[in-house]
């Protein structure tokens, strides 16, 4: 009799476990704190996520640093599960199994992934410790960042909008982009069916009329190019009507070495971006 009760209880627990695995009714990872799940999740992560989020989840050129405890799109385990399952509309984050390369994950594997991400989260994130107000002043003032970059609707258009940069990128990768802008060109337009996004390449053309135009590529194919010049004018050009066309992977952004932007000022700007990104 006791053994029947025991088995029934076991069956009930198993049913509940299965249900929570599928539906996450309580919003908590059913595999939370299971080190084996986190290990299995690490394999899933390397295969499915690391392409964008980097090995170790510290952010690649493409996806945010996931080791930060504060995340933009997912706070609870259940939200993280939803984000991994369904992707994030309007971003490069695809729904599970739709990135066209990997195999989709089962619910169990997604929970393993969540367990892994939790296991690598830095509880006290290494946030930059600069002066955000001074960083903001520099950004819109002496450092000239806002000539080309927008933050919260204010600033220039030539470079990428940096409103969300501090919320998704690591401190180190932001500093690398400022110090060595040509190392990893920023990504621009991402088209739905296209494998690679447009990058912030620099273009110089001479028109049939002999006019030279330099700017960043908003988009390009073999037959046309769409450019923004440093005065923020758009030039929509057909290549066969140009006298010359040159493209380089040297960013139009000048590299900021420590003599033009001190390490302290750099830290202040990153802190400003982090504060904006955390909103």
């Amino acid at each position, binding site marked *: 009799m006791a053994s029947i009760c025991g088995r029934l209880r076991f069956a009930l627990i198993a049913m509940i476990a299965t249900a929570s695995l599928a539906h996450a009714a309580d919003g908590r990872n059913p595999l939370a704190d299971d080190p084996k799940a986190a290990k299995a999740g690490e394999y899933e992560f390397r295969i499915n996520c690391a392409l964008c989020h980097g090995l170790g989840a510290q952010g690649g050129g493409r996806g945010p640093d996931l080791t930060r405890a504060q995340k933009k799109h997912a706070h609870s385990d259940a939200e993280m599960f939803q984000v991994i399952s369904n992707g994030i509309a309007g971003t490069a984050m695809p729904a599970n199994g739709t990135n*066209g390369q990997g*195999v989709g994950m089962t619910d169990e594997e997604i929970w393993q992934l969540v367990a892994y991400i939790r296991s690598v989260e830095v509880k006290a994130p290494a946030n930059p410790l600069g002066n955000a107000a001074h960083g903001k002043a520099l950004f819109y003032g002496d450092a000239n960042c806002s000539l080309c970059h927008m933050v919260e609707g204010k600033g220039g258009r030539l470079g990428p909008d940096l409103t969300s940069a501090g919320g998704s990128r690591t401190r180190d990768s932001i500093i690398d982009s400022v110090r060595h802008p040509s190392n990893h060109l920023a990504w621009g337009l991402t088209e739905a069916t*296209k494998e690679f996004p447009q990058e912030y390449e620099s273009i110089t053309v001479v028109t049939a009329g002999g006019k030279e135009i330099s700017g960043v590529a908003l988009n390009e194919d*073999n037959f046309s190019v769409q450019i923004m010049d440093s005065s923020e004018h758009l030039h929509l050009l057909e290549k066969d009507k140009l006298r010359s066309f040159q493209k380089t992977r040297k960013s139009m952004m000048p590299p900021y070495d420590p003599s033009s932007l001190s390490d302290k000022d750099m830290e202040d700007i990153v802190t400003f971006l982090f504060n904006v990104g955390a909103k």
Partner: protein
Amino acid sequence: MRRKVGSAAAKTPVRAKTPAQAWKNGASAPCQFPLGCKGFSPSGSQGLKAAKFPPLNAALEGPLFHAIFSVRERMLIILLIAFLFDLRAYAQVTFDRLLNSAKEPQNWLTYSGDYAGRRHSALDQINVTNVRSLTAKWVYQTGATGKLESTPLVVDGILYATAQDDRAFALDARTGRPIWLYQRQLPGDLRPCCGHVNRGLAILGDKVFLGTLDAHVIALDAKTGNIIWDVTAADYQKGYSFTGAPLAVKNLIITGVSGGEYGVRGFIDAYDAATGERKWRFDTVPGPGEPGHETWEGDSWKVGGAPAWNTGTYDPQTDQIFWPTGNPAPSNRGEGRAGDNLYSNSLLALNAATGKLNWYFQFTKHDEHDWDATQIPLMIDTNGKHLIAQANRNGFFYVLDRTTGKLISANAYGKTTWSDTKDSEGRPIANKNSSPTLQGHTVCPGALGTTNYMSPAYNAQTGLFYVTARDQCDIFSTAPQPYEAGHAYYGSAYFPSEDAKPYLGFLKAIDPATGEIKWKFQHTTPTWSGVLSTAGGLVFTGDAEGNFIALDAASGKPLWHFQMGGAVYAAPMAFALDGKEYVAIAAGSAIYTFALP
């Protein structure tokens, strides 16, 4: 469309000089049916008859025929013969027609356009002098999302194609309007690798054949899309699926399985086209007691991969199919499967009737970079030699003697760093330091390969092999996984190397005799488009930016382009209708057709 019977043209069957002329002549001839030309295509078939039965046509024009029969009788006889042949042409795609596909270039009867895999059309109405005026004729929106990889078939005015999630459909090739639609009800727990893609159909008799993502092979009625038979080839829950277009040979429907990412045991199957009964299976990973079994460590053969997910070619002279195979599993980790891992990454020459192995050639032994050798093996006959050529995913262009399977040459046609030496047969072999590591190790080409599933083309006039190529290097990093049925089984993660940017994409024209690249056309970014060659001296291809492009086959100079609004993941084809040559290609979520105004 109905036309009047008995015009002058109908009494004088057209005598074809070349297949290309035949379709033109035929296309301008009015209907010959007593009841008018109802049903499918009223044109195109005349050219077919003329091309297929020139002696008969000559007899009908001869003096003896005229002396024996009255005008009325002569007319009735001609009509009767025409009717019989046309019934056959409309209703049945016989093996004989597949063998002689070159005689009816108005149709596109197999995935690659012919059994040799040449993806070359004998149509020449669109050519280097007039291609600049090529214009869009119609567009069909499939409603599917993801990568549309399908090459349509066209038979007597009807276009058959597939789309993602195992859609299949038949369209009026003149207008693009659907005749029937088939959408498979796929199981909810389906998790195929690499998207819910499908590359196309085979047609034989009055049926079209589809391999499905849930690992079934099905036959649909060509006129209605009704399911005629549906057989289970394997268990999709263990990672088996079909994505490639089957190949119809004699009475058999031949196809190979996908699933190299799950640790399946690969196979190539042949089914009776009439009943769906499986006639043979070739296991691409040999079991105990079979030759090649010793190339697998321990029990690794049981989950050894070696899928066969693209479409092979067929040599009627020797009654052999040539079928390429994919990566061993786990795809990016060699530990635990020591040995060459036959018959992964190989070309197999199988007896078409029995599936017995005649010879094999393994391109990449003990692969650790996911370099499936599933590229189309293309048959070339030149100077009395019977060759088979493959631009392989590992970056080398191989030419083999297809009688013996012996390697003739292997030359790099893209950026490769994995092999600096060749073995005694001339086969490139892997450098010691090319294996993935925990920290990651950069190797060129990357996991996606110098080329991939995208179809190449060959034009016997230019003697050039046209193939889409990419220069991209990846960082290969191990991520050891235990095998679990139906779960991903890669053993590695790979990332495009930032240091190797930009990744370059090309259309390359290779001389198979020397391996020399005669010309290359650089895309803005790498493309997944296949290539079509035509007798008009053109090659057609698509790009990731959504352009459909025609180039001079001799020089690679782009002559025409059209922006389709979505990236290309499919290969183009050509057909003819109403005396007009069409080229067609899938892009974005749609199928586009083009013709001269």
